[in-house]
């Protein structure tokens, strides 16, 4: 009896920590994207907006599932991450020129295949987004594994 509860409590511990890390990563990404658009005034293209729609709710959803800890959040947050991940992947391929973009370049806004920031020679904003969604997704997946085991 005591052994089982011990296993349970460590599982609980690790699950909580993973969701906490996922929240932390999503919050950094949210703050970062707001910094790019609001402080540096980098224009936000259409695809970036769709990724924001998937990323921003994670900050609240994951935070609320920490107090009290509710592992069922993986379902909701996982769906958001999946959507964001595919859009980020699409944009990364667009930037890389693997998927061609329609001819609608400088109309009103900004072509999504244009990048504004390059860190360390390869990290542009869509790549950062894809990495972030992958990381949050992995953390949520690990949480799910712990909870179902």
């Amino acid at each position: 009896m005591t052994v089982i509860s011990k296993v349970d409590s460590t599982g609980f511990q690790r699950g909580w920590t993973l969701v906490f890390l996922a929240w932390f990563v999503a919050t950094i990404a949210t703050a970062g994207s707001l910094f790019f658009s609001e402080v540096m005034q980098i224009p936000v293209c259409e695809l970036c907006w769709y990724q924001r729609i998937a990323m921003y709710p994670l900050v609240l959803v994951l935070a609320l599932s920490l107090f009290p800890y509710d592992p069922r959040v993986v379902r909701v947050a996982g769906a958001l991450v999946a959507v964001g991940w595919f859009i980020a992947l699409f944009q990364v391929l667009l930037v890389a020129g693997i998927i061609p973009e329609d001819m609608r370049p400088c109309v009103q806004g900004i072509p999504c295949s244009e990048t504004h920031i390059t860190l360390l020679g390869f990290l542009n904003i869509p790549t950062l987004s894809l990495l972030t969604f992958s990381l949050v997704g992995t953390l949520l997946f690990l949480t799910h594994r712990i909870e179902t085991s």
Partner: protein
Amino acid sequence: MSRKFLFITGIGIILLAFIIAVALYQNQNSSLSGASSTQRQGAPVKGPENAKVTIVEFFDPACGTCADFYPLVKQLMDQYPGKVRVMMRYAPLHTGSDQVVKMLEAAHQQGKYWETLELLFKNQNRWVVNHVSQPMRARALVNGLALDHGRLDIDINLPEVSRVIQQDIEDGQALKVQATPEFFVNGRPMPSFGYKQLSDLVKEAVDEAY
């Protein structure tokens, strides 16, 4: 460490990092003055000198929409003969365009601005690949024009040329030009992007001035 403490520390760290980043960024950019002017002395102008309505266009030669708008702007000038002139200013937003606008400015020094611009717009697909300017290809294209090519290659690297472009970029930033083409008619921006909005703005300005 209690969970709530960890959570609040997390919020604190992100918030603090954000505030520091904002402060650092703004400090770095405080040198930009607030003075912003839509017109620049010596910028390429088409149309009568004494026209009371000036369309200022911030553009990137690599921008497809700028090329599409070029005949439309001409059409507007024809619509109000003698009353409207257009001034072109550089906003090299595309990668590689900084070199191409230098070449344009060098051509301007020889009085061959419009020929060069028209050639670049007309053959955009030959020197813009995936929204990235290829300055060497643009240069090769211009070889077909009757220019003093030796002088052009020297002028591209003149500090005056860089200064002019830097001035345009800084004014563009001050005027919040984030996409091209961006138009200002007698200093007024378009309410939203579109040909109709531009032609309405020009009509308004002509009605006011004449």
